[in-house]
């Protein structure tokens, strides 16, 4: 087998079969070749000596392979040689006429941590085929020298050798393998780094998770590696349970996605339109430089119109069922049992009003998550990041940073955790600081109830406007950060993975929808239940208090309330509710329900007619389904099946709010909810990801936004929210 000769540089040539690797090898070495077998193997190895800059270079022609997965002898030999012999440079010879396929091997070799250069061979054939490759961009994206060559005509070979030896540096390429896998890699990698060189640690960790037999056998030789192997097995089992596929497949799938995104960014085909796939044709439109952004905002507007309108009939139905029928039954039952008045008040005014007041909005979240799942599973969301790329570059960020922001629409906590997929700390930090300005799903019920109560004809538009305002403030914050906190940092460059468009499977959509929404239900049964009980207790202390304004809650909130008078909602009810929102934003609504509905209606044991109530519930559900379908169909151009504005109908809480807010103060309240301090879970995530100082900074800078004119009632009026 070829090995190092004294201090002579060792260069290996790797590549797919028929990529022209041997042609380049022959051209570089001439007659100075030696053919032998790999030790103990039947696979032939050719090595030779090339002359470069007056010195000799040992060149080894690795077996042609499509991948380094080590499923075949050739693949195992190529991989082991790079890992064991540590060549000074690995030159990957890629067929430029079929770059996407060839890049898969190149990315795997980069992941091995070897100093690498890429030869784009057969460039003449690629150009004749109408294929243009942005070599400069490819160099920057991969971080390695890329040299166009024509091996058969000996073009570019001198430069290839020169660039490879002088400029190739060890730079392990990091493909983003998704949250679950990246978490497992981060956990195991430090221990693996004790076994192998630091540059190969990530690759070896990945192989352990994949269950690679050769790597496991190598580790298995050491007795104290057993806990590491057991941990890797456990992590792999957990990942497989989440995704329903084995880790090896998931890794290859993500890597192909990365390579596809890379090829999409650097290769331009000038072939006629009839050879283009549907994915390419859709991308021509939705990823268009000019049209892409308006299409993105139009799609997001459609999502929020659907969310607000299609869920509205179900919101009303749950309100009637929980706060009408169920509350009536509980009242009648407890009255019949002669239960004490405080218990009746706790159950009806505290728990049912609080928890029910939040659960009413479950349909809103279900529709929102369903729509986002459609965009995600169809492959559009990756394009959204692509479209936002230019906008994000204004902030010195990459389109990839947009993904954590979109995740933040669901919940800010996973949005902050998703910044881990970004490659440098500056990007992670900047994106993480912007995430709390994304309107999470917990804020959506607040938007919906206020929008429906005060802007009934334009509720969906108001909700959408708040989301857009959040994005605008995030962009503005990013611009300020870029010019102040991160002024000296260099912009980063990433590859965006672009999966092909596909028809989303209904089962997958429903699974996504429920997986995200169940957290909301879980919170309702825990945090919100507890918060409702606490708020109810504080509203009834000291014992026997007649007016809730005189209660402990009312007194404390009332003392702080004047601070909010300039914003138009300087009353103790709004102030107290906002304070409880620091626990979780949904608690704002549950607190308002307890405060307004609890004090609003005295419980009376009205006679219960179970049959009539059940009829109300069942018929009401049927009507909600029909009404929701009508509302959805009415979105189609030229179709109008409903006369409603589409927002949630009047609930007990919305009527109470109309009595306590004006449209101007409601608008200010909504903007305030968008930008005031994040909930404790988000602050905790900021602290764990970036440290306590940055978490504190996040609260401070959001407070600065809070004091801005954006949250004043006059701003709402200027924006047209308050109507006339």
């Amino acid at each position, binding site marked *: 087998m070829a090995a190092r000769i004294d201090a002579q540089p060792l260069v290996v040539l790797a590549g797919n079969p028929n990529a022209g690797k041997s042609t380049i090898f022959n051209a570089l070495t001439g007659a100075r070749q030696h053919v032998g077998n790999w030790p103990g193997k039947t696979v032939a190895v050719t090595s030779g000596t090339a002359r470069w800059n007056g010195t000799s270079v040992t060149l080894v022609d690795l077996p042609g392979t499509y991948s380094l*997965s080590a499923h*075949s002898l050739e693949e195992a030999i190529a991989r082991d040689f790079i890992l064991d012999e540590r060549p000074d440079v690995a030159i990957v010879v890629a067929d430029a006429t*079929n770059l996407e396929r060839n890049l*898969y091997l190149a990315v795997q070799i980069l992941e091995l941590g070897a100093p690498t250069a890429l030869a784009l061979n057969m460039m003449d054939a690629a150009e004749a085929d109408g294929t243009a490759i942005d070599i400069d961009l490819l160099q920057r994206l991969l971080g390695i020298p890329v040299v166009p060559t024509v091996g058969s005509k000996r073009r570019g070979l001198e430069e290839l050798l020169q660039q490879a030896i002088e400029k190739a540096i060890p730079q392990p390429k990091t493909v983003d393998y998704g949250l679950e896998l990246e978490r497992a890699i981060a956990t195991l990698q430090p221990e693996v780094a004790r076994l192998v060189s630091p540059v190969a640690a990530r690759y070896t960790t990945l192989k352990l998770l994949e269950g690679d037999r050769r790597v496991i056998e190598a580790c298995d030789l050491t007795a104290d590696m057993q806990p590491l192997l057991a941990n890797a097995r456990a992590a792999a089992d957990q990942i497989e349970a989440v995704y329903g596929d084995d880790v090896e497949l998931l890794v*290859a*799938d993500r890597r192909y996605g990365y390579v596809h995104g890379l090829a999409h960014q650097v290769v331009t085909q000038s072939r006629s339109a009839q050879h283009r796939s549907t994915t390419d044709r859709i991308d021509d439109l939705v990823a268009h430089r000019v049209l892409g952004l308006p299409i993105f905002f139009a799609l997001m507007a459609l999502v929020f119109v659907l969310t607000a309108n299609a869920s509205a009939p179900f919101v009303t139905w749950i309100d009637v069922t929980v706060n009408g029928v169920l509350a009536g039954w509980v009242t009648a039952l407890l009255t019949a049992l002669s239960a004490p008045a405080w218990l009746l008040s706790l159950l009806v005014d505290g728990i049912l009003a609080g928890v029910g007041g939040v659960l009413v909005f479950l349909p809103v979240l279900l529709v929102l998550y369903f729509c986002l799942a459609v965009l995600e599973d169809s492959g559009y969301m990756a394009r959204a990041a692509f479209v936002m790329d230019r906008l994000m570059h204004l902030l010195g960020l990459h389109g990839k940073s947009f993904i954590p922001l979109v995740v933040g629409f669901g919940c800010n906590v996973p949005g902050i955790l998703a910044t881990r997929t970004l490659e440098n700390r500056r990007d992670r930090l900047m994106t993480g600081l912007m995430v709390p300005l994304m309107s999470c799903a917990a804020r959506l019920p607040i938007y919906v109830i206020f929008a429906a109560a005060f802007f009934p004809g334009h509720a969906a538009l108001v909700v959408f406007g708040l989301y857009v305002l959040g994005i605008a403030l995030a962009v503005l914050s990013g611009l300020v950060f870029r010019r102040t906190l991160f002024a000296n940092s260099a912009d980063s460059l990433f590859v965006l993975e672009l*999966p*092909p468009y596909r028809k989303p499977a209904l089962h997958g959509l429903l699974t996504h929808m429920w997986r995200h929404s169940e957290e909301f239900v879980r919170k309702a049964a825990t945090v919100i239940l507890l918060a409702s009980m606490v708020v109810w207790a504080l509203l009834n202390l000291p014992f026997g208090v007649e007016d809730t304004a005189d209660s402990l809650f009312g007194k404390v909130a009332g003392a702080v309330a004047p601070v909010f008078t300039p914003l138009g909602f300087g009353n103790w009810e709004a102030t107290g509710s906002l304070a409880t929102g620091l626990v979780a934003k949904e608690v704002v609504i549950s607190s308002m329900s307890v405060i307004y509905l609890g004090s609003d209606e005295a419980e009376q044991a009205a006679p219960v007619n179970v049959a009539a109530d059940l009829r109300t519930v069942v018929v009401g559900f049927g009507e909600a389904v029909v009404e929701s379908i009508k509302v959805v169909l009415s979105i189609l151009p030229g179709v109008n099946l409903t006369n409603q504005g589409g927002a949630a109908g009047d609930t007990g809480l919305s009527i109470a709010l109309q009595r306590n807010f004006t449209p101007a103060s409601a608008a200010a309240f909504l903007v305030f909810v968008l930008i005031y301090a994040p909930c404790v879970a988000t602050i905790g995530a900021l602290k764990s990801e970036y440290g306590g100082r940055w978490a504190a900074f996040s609260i401070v800078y959001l407070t600065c936004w809070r004091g801005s004119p954006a949250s004043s009632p006059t701003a709402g009026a200027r924006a047209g929210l308050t109507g006339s």
Partner: protein
Amino acid sequence: MLRQILRTFREAPGPISLDLLAAQLEVEPTVLDGMLAELVAMGRLTRTEGHEPVACSACNSQGFCPYVINTETICYALA
């Protein structure tokens, strides 16, 4: 993409050729070829002999014509 390929095979009534799969998934056959090779290496797919429907203008034998065209081709199926 690999997961989408496997899903297509799960829903297919039988083996599928490279060209047919490439047309169905709208991926360049040269790119898809590498992915199929990887799936075969992983033991998820097998290479097999199969028939591929050929659209002859005057014949509805769907490529299974024993006289004129030999449509046997390399196909892939779930392992």
